[in-house]
């Protein structure tokens, strides 16, 4: 979420995209990006499943 970046500790594009996140992802190899996508999708599904049961 874009917030006050007067301290220079954040970097959002004018349309609100977190550029630091993009740069971090670009620093990974394709295999690492694929692995991250797989892990994060599974984590999200696991959390959804846990909450559906609650």
């Amino acid at each position: 979420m874009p917030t006050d970046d007067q301290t220079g500790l954040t970097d959002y594009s004018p349309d609100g995209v977190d550029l630091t996140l993009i740069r971090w992802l670009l620093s990974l190899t394709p295999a690492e990006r694929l692995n991250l996508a797989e892990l994060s999708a599974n984590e999200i599904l696991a959390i959804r499943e846990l909450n559906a049961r609650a």
Partner: protein
Amino acid sequence: MPELRYTATLRALSTGGVDFILVGGLAAVLSGAPINTFDVDVVHSREPGNIHRLLPVLDALDAVFRIQPERRLKPNASHLSSSGHLNLITRHGPLDLLGTIGQGLGYQDLIPHSVELHISEELRIRVLDLETLIMIKEELGGEKDRAVLPILRRTLEEQRKR
């Protein structure tokens, strides 16, 4: 819901000798876009030989149509020859096989707009480039496609700075 195993799906297609291009959300992630996705979208070659190689791979993946998974409807050669979209569920999660994307672009049309990425020593896959992914989403103009465009455009800008 099976555990999502994108790498296993891509490896199965690759080792089965299937000609395909990864498109959609996972292609965007592999290009560096920070988005979440829950399926593997590929445009496959609809050449008879490729369909012949694709069918046993789908069988090994237990692929059936997602719309009524309980009916266990398997895709056949005729389905795979069509220009339409096949929304499947496999043992490794959802897999969409797309005959064409955008304004009727098939495998051969997309080859010049794809790059080969090395995932590991034994796994190399063709991935649609970010420019084309953006162009297709702009053409489609759906709400879901428009929502992700700012992230894809900024990723392309950052990619070009490298």
